């Protein structure tokens, strides 16, 4: 956040400069470490050998021994053991001669404790499994490390973030793709998630004259300009045998006032190559493509490639331009895969798309969460969804915030609330539910015992009914907590609980 704030003011092309500086930093630090690597351990080691030598010679002749014995500093405690010396030597020459597997466990641990985190990955990647070593690597490189986000494994975190970093700063036709592919054999067994929040477009020396055209009609330029394609993930993803999560944003971060439309171009070639990539990746469980201007056609290309995917569980296409046709394709995907989470927030889905989704949802048994925030499904789509929920027995989370819904949907939803026993969370914020709709929802809530969250903020509902709904939810939560052995609701993020919503 702070970096974003800082870059907001700067008018220069920050992305490129940042990239160059970061690479410089890296190289400089690498050089530093290579030169200083063995030094910090040396100074402590050097004095003992001279003494040990003296001791060795002293053993042969009595005269010498007397001389050594008079040395006031000499004592047995200072003399390091031979194993210590060996370990130090191994640590010092680890880059050229990595010896680890043959050592005894205790010695192994010592070696690992003393290894420098700047050793080349080609040496360490497949040799060292010790978490503490990778922890040192990570903490040295990044100030903030959330290891829990990487499955609790420091090694995985290191490789994932390393790879992400490379991808973020990859400039097509400028950076050597071998740079990434070299890393592939080292990290293929450890990377499970790829979260890339920016893809840089190819650098254009004269961007000025074209920028106006592009900003006016981005899609046309995109078609006729293959030079704006981003990095093709195909080879990389095909090499990662354990990849489970792919989180991509085809766009540039922190552009600030340098905003240009062509920074956010997700071209058809990108789309097709990405589709082929995710189709070939059978281990993929979570696929996110957000903020990338994915329109109906691209969404359909992507979703078609995901039909009957063996492992896919979550699809996130939020903050795109997906319309009704894309929503219909997603509805088809619902019935042709084992999708559990579908996120279409902030798209352009309208009533027709919502109806097709509702049709698919009516008999679906996999989907747990559906997010349609900031779309425009209106009452028609809302009613269709409510009808679908009367037969659905699987969905637990439904987000319909900001969808221009009003009273008719609320009446139908209140009927659903009385019947449905699987829904635990509904979000209807930023709609025009109205006073009567709020009352009907309150009636529906009075028969429901499973709903834990119900967000009605800024939806023109009377404060009283919202308060009463909150009370009912509270009771439901308490019941759920007593049912569950672990008080999970204690820490769960609960959003909807607000009589505080202003009436005005």
């Amino acid at each position, binding site marked *: *956040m702070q970096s974003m704030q800082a870059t907001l003011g700067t008018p220069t092309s920050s992305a490129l400069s940042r990239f160059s500086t970061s690479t410089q930093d890296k190289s400089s630090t690498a050089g530093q470490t290579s030169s200083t690597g063995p030094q910090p351990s040396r100074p402590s080691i050097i004095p003992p050998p001279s003494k040990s030598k003296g001791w060795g010679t002293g053993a042969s002749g009595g005269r010498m021994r007397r001389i050594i014995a008079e040395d006031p500093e000499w004592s047995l405690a200072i003399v390091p053991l031979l194993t210590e010396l060996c370990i130090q030597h191994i640590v010092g020459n680890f880059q050229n001669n990595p010896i680890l597997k043959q050592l005894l466990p205790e010695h192994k641990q010592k070696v690992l404790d003393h290894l420098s985190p700047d050793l080349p990955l080609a040496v360490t990647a497949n040799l060292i499994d010790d978490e503490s070593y990778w922890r040192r690597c990570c903490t040295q490189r990044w100030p903030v490390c959330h290891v829990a986000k990487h499955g609790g494994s420091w090694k995985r975190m290191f490789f994932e973030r390393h790879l992400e970093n490379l991808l973020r700063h990859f400039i097509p036709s400028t950076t050597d793709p071998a740079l990434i592919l070299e890393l592939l054999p080292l990290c293929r067994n450890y990377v499970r998630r790829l979260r890339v929040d920016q893809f840089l477009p190819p650098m254009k020396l004269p961007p000025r004259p074209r920028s106006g055209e592009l900003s006016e009609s981005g899609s046309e330029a995109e078609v006729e300009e293959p030079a704006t394609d981003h990095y093709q993930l195909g080879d990389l993803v095909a090499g990662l045998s354990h990849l489970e999560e792919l989180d991509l944003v085809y766009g540039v971060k922190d552009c600030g006032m340098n905003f240009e439309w062509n920074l956010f171009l997700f071209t058809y070639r990108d789309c097709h190559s990405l589709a082929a990539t995710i189709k070939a990746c059978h281990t993929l469980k979570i696929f996110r493509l*957000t903020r990338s201007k994915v329109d109906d056609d691209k969404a359909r290309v992507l979703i078609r490639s995901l039909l009957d995917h063996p492992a896919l569980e979550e699809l996130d296409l939020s*903050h795109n331009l997906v319309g009704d046709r894309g929503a219909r394709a997603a509805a088809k995907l619902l019935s042709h895969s084992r999708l559990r989470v579908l996120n279409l927030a902030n798209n352009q889905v309208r009533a027709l798309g919502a109806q097709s989704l509702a049709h698919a949802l009516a008999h679906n048994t996999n989907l747990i969460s559906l997010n349609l925030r900031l779309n425009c499904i209106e009452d028609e789509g809302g009613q269709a969804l409510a009808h679908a929920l009367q037969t659905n027995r699987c969905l637990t989370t439904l987000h319909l915030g900001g969808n221009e819904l009003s009273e008719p949907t609320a009446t139908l939803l209140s009927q659903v609330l009385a019947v449905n026993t699987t829904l635990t969370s509904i979000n209807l914020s930023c709609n025009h539910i109205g006073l009567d709709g709020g009352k009907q929802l309150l009636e529906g809530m009075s028969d429901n015992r499973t709903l834990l969250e119900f967000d009605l903020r800024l939806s023109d509902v009377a404060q009283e009914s919202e308060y009463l709904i909150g009370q009912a939810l509270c009771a439901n939560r308490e019941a759920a907590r007593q049912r569950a052995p672990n008080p999970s609701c204690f820490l769960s993020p*609960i*959003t909807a609980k607000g009589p*505080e919503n*202003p009436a*005005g």
Partner: protein
Amino acid sequence: MGMQAGAATLENSTEVPQKTKNRTTLRPSNCTTRHLSTGYREALGEYLDGKKESEEDQSKSYKQKEESRLKLAKLLLCGTELVTNIQVAADIREIHRRVEEGEIRRQRLEKLENEVKTSQDKFDEITMKWEEGKRKRIPQDLWDMLNTQQVHCAGLIEDKNKLISELQQELKTKDDQYVKDLKKQSDDICLLLERMEEQVKNVMKTFRQELNSIEKAFEAERRELLTSNKKKWERALQAHNAKELEYLLSRIKKVEDYEKQLNKQRVWDCEEYNTIKIKLEQDVQILEQQLQQMKATYQLNQEKLEYNFQVLKKRDEESVVIKSQQKRKISRLHDILNNLRSKYTRQIRQFEEENQSLTSDYIRLVTQFKELQKAMRHFALLDDKRFREIWLMNEEEAKDLISKAFDVDRIIHTQHLGLPWTAPDFWFLRNVGPISQQQQRSATQILEEVLIQTEEEGMEEATSETESYLDLPKQVSMKTTRKILMLLCDESGFLIESKLLNLLRPLEKSECYLLKLDAIFSALGIESEDDLYKLVNFFLKYRVHHSPSSQERTSPMSALDPGEQTDLERQKEGSLVGGEPEEKEVPPSPTLIHPNDVLKILEAFVMGLRKPRDPPAPVKVVKYVRDTSKDSAYWEALATVLPYATQNLWDALYTALEKYHLVLTQRAKLLIENNSLEKQNTELQMLLQQYLDSKVGDGDEEGGQEAVAGSGTGADVRK
């Protein structure tokens, strides 16, 4: 956060008033949440109070924990709400923006369309006027028209330019708005961060507070527990101390006691020690003496043993010699044994061979023997037949002779002696065929007889009973037998086949009985007459045996042993043959034999009957041997059918008759002489006649005289 930021970047424009309104709407929400949270807490407190009563036994810390949990949950809820409020506000702003944007776009499009229409109209007008202008001939008009056209065109262009400038203005404002939006977003994000930090701080603080309060509660509880435990501990310690003191005192006392006792004991022990010492010293002396003695004896024994050892050595040597001898002997015996074994095996083999040959011989002999037997049987039959034929032939011959003799005798008696003759009647005269022992009659025949006879008896009582005994040589009367048999027939119907019973139904009663009994006897294995009698006797014995009451009545010897009794009974039965009165003393048997006992009796009888019948074959062979003892007598009798007296008579008669015959033959001779003489006479007479005839007279006289002489002699002989 990232998502929110992204959402924020997508917003290009927002309205300031909207935002301020949102701020204002969201700010008080904080207050309301706080207010509400306190209210909720109060409500919660009540709830907890209510819970307190119900869970009096729950510890204070638990209550504190529960309270804190609810409080913190509430806090988290409010906090997250506070934070997400920004997102919601941004959402609604975005929605409003979108609506307005749509509206503006629509208006703009409308405007543009209107503009296009009006400008098109104007353009059409201008083009029309060009056409008009072509037709104009007057330059003045043309100039005017051109001027007006120019004005129109300028107006049109001006309109367009205005529109363009308007749009550019809008674009500019949009650009401004974008900058504003960016600023506002950064503000929003700042606010969000602030709130989050605040929230984090708040949460941290409250968590810490709650933690502190929980810790305090725990500590208080711990302190209470500690104090109570300490009190308990002190109390226990005091008690322990008191007890310890008590123990100490008692221990001191005990120690003193023990010391006294120890002293006493020590003195006593000393004394005892001394006495024992003296005694032991004495013992030692004695033992030393004994030791000396033992040593002496030991030496003696040693010598003895040495001697013995020598002897034994010698013996050992001897025994070694003997042993070797024995060994040799054993080897020799082994050899012998082996020889014998081989011999034995050889013999066994030999004997086996012999045995085999003998068995084969035996088998052959047996077959031969069987054949021989068959032949013998055949020959015996043939012999029998031949014997019979010869016998018959001889007998016939003899009978012929006898009849001849009898004829002769009769003739002699009637004609010669003039006595009446009666034909002698002998058994053997009636006999035809060889004499054989009377054939054993089968049981059925006897049965038949018995039944028929008893029936006859029933019809005519007068017939003497002694006759009926003729056929039953044993001691039982006809009646009892019959009754027993009837009983048997009635009781043991199960032995008869059902088919037979069906067949028997139409028959008469007696025949029915007969056939039934026949079937029963065949089933029981009773074949001969003897068996039948045995059966009957068995019945009677049984009855006697098993009816002591009747016994007591008949004889006072009930005290005797059963064996003797049976003997006596047997004797009695033996005597029973004699007469009827005795039999009548015994009550009629069948009545006494209970029908239920019949089966038991039968079983016992059959068991008994089996035993003696086991070897039946040799008996049969013996049966065929003829008894020739009577034959000679028979033949002799046949030979001496005429008694010696008659023979003598016949001899005398013979001699007399011979004499008579002699006389008669003489007479016959004489007669023949006479006849011849007569013939001569006649011839002579004839000759004489002839001679007379020829010589008349001489010859006749002489022939006549001779004839007369002949006849006269004959007559004399006769007289």
